[in-house]
């Protein structure tokens, strides 16, 4: 074949295929593919989301939704990298700690109007306490689909073997407070097993310690977020007790000891109730789920939240908001509630939750889930949280040694994080 014929045939081929490809794009413009980043790769979760997406497709046949699980540990980093790379998802789950960053940035599409306009949505059913973090100037920017209380899982087999009182016994006696909880944990710890693990804390995720220090009425910063309160008395007292529990009483594992409660060798753990799915099905142990003990400041509850929002800048933002309204309507919220504790008042009753949480007893649902959601304070968050988190983490490292000077260590935390908070 001569050069000339080759050229001619390639031109002919191109003239045939190009219009085809062009036509293909034109056709694809009508179809909308929404992408939602999530941090759960749980198959049951994904199946439920796919089911909800299929329900949306019935009324919007041109819209399909894909759910993209990202690893939890690097979730926000991966999400913002996608945004920076010009490839943002249409919808995304958002952690409570970074809520302020996303809500204040203007990246998210406003939701209130779209939700109110959706028939049968009933936005007022969603508790105000739950939406506070996700609202700015009266406008909702993400829907809190999961409001999960922190609670204590206890392994009664381990506790009894160490001669320690179980939480149930202490609750029965009206003595369920941190003094006694740490005493039980210390008995287990000194017997050679592990007493109490604050799950995911690992001497890095310090904000999870709010599940303890809130009992002292302590908080990392002032309500307006402008000044550091690590040096105030409630925090100093709480941290002194925690430090003693770790280094003197061996009630909690020390730095660099990675221990999983659900392996069955630990007395108690503080975590969110959704972790009940990790309870071992083979060789089960005698477990219990109880509310957090009372602290010197009285009874309290702490919740972790997750929101889901739609990005305002995306080409399909309007459809994304529409899907969000569908996904979180009253009917689908009931579906979501089987994995994610709901923030809808109508779903916060024992019957509704018992149907979707078969592992928990009605009493556990009442005392841990419902009361926890109703009265719980959300984990601390702040704008520019990642940098503040790292700065506090670095400062607290001087506290996590046996001979630490607690007030001095907390002072150093405030010295380094103060300027960041004041910004």
């Amino acid at each position, binding site marked *: 074949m001569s050069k000339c014929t080759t050229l001619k045939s390639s031109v002919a081929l191109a003239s045939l295929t190009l219009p085809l490809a062009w036509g293909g794009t034109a056709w694809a413009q009508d179809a909308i593919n929404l992408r939602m980043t999530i941090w759960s790769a749980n198959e049951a979760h994904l199946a439920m989301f796919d089911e909800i997406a299929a329900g949306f497709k019935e009324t919007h046949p041109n819209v399909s939704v894909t759910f993209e699980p990202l690893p939890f540990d690097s979730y926000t*980093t991966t999400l*913002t*990298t996608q*945004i*920076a790379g010009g490839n943002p998802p249409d919808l995304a789950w958002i952690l409570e700690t970074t809520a302020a*960053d*996303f809500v204040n*940035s*203007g*990246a998210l599409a406003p939701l209130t109007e779209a939700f109110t306009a959706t028939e049968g949505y009933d936005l007022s059913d969603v508790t105000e306490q739950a939406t506070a973090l996700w609202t700015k100037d009266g406008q909702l920017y993400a829907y809190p689909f999961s409001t999960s209380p922190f609670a204590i899982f206890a392994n009664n087999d381990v506790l009894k073997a160490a001669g320690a009182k179980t939480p149930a016994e202490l609750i029965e006696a009206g003595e369920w407070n941190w003094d006694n909880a740490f005493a039980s944990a210390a008995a287990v710890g000194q017997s050679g097993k592990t007493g109490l693990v604050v799950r995911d804390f690992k*001497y*890095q995720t310090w904000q999870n310690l709010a599940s303890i220090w809130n009992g002292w009425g302590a908080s990392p910063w002032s309500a307006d977020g402008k000044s550091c309160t690590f040096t105030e008395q409630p925090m100093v007292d709480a941290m002194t007790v925690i430090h003693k529990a770790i280094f003197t009483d061996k009630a909690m594992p*020390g*730095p*660099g*000891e*990675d221990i999983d409660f659900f392996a069955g060798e630990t007395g108690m753990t503080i975590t969110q109730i959704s972790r009940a799915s990790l309870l071992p099905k083979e060789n089960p142990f005698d477990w219990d789920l109880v509310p957090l003990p009372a602290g010197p400041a009285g009874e309290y509850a702490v919740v972790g939240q997750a929101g889901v929002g739609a990005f305002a*800048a995306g080409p399909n933002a309007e459809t994304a908001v529409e899907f969000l309204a569908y996904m979180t309507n009253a009917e689908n919220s009931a579906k979501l509630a089987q994995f994610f504790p709901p923030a809808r008042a109508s779903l916060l009753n024992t019957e509704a939750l018992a149907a979707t949480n078969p592992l928990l007893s009605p009493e556990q649902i009442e005392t841990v889930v419902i009361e926890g959601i109703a009265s719980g304070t959300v984990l601390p968050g702040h704008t*520019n949280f*990642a*940098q503040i988190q*790292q700065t506090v*983490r*670095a*400062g607290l*490292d*001087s506290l*996590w*040694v046996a001979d630490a000077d607690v007030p001095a260590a907390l002072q150093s935390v405030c010295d380094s994080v103060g300027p960041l908070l004041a910004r």
Partner: protein
Amino acid sequence: MTSQSRKRPFWTIERRDAVAGYAFIAPQLIGTLVFVLFPLALVFWYSLHEWNVLANSFNFVGDANYQQLLRDPSLPKVLTASAVFSAGLVVLNMSLALLLAILLDQKLRGMVIFRTLFFSPVVVSLVAWTIVWSFLLQNNGGINGFLQMFGVTGPNWLRNPETAMLSVIVVQVFKNVGLNMILFLAALQGVPKELYEAARVDGASPFKQFRRITVPMISPTILLTSIITIVGSLQVFAQIAVLTQGGPGVSTTVLVYYLYQQAFQFHFFGYGSTLSILLFLIVAVLTFAQWQLRKRIVFYEN
């Protein structure tokens, strides 16, 4: 026909050769352009901007990020950590590699097994290697368990400011010492044996032979390995991310990890880009200095 025969044909042999030559280096050239030079230019461009990813704002701020670089209170600590890491790594890695190479340069049975053994970590996945070490270095991990057998209570390696940096360095040395060892071994075997013979006849001690013959003869390899090791040490990331996340405090926050934190964790892409320009300059200056040094101290036979 006549006009064509008078004109020189366009495709001369030289031109054909040039096209063929460029075609052969094109994959490498395009790769360098697309994945090295273009991103480098972009990073410089980003470093002149404040880029708020979430708010989707990208504003020109001139040298503000470079001003911040000069005022950043964390930067001296970060640079010190980088320098300590690099110095520790280079000294430990090079001396251990040379020692191993000399030991393995003996004609004994089973040497091949030892060579393979010492080289094998080089081909292990970096993250897998580091994760295994993180288990060993835990407070209740393998190393302290081993020390316990002799009644020694080991430190909490990764949580103690004094031992965390040392641990990270040693993990990295064991990972990569095999590569330098092989390079040194090849260099050692390239030293002409008659030089040693002549030295022995003249009554030179083994140490003197090493200093006067071995070191000068392998000095090109010493230069090469030192450049590779220093530049590599400035790029350490995975070990820090897996073992210490920059802690305790900021004691193991080296420049690359700090850059990662600023850009990808705190979302300050502009300042992160500025830090990577700083890293680029440090690597460029070090490499240039080493090539200059070559002229003075490296011995070339020809």
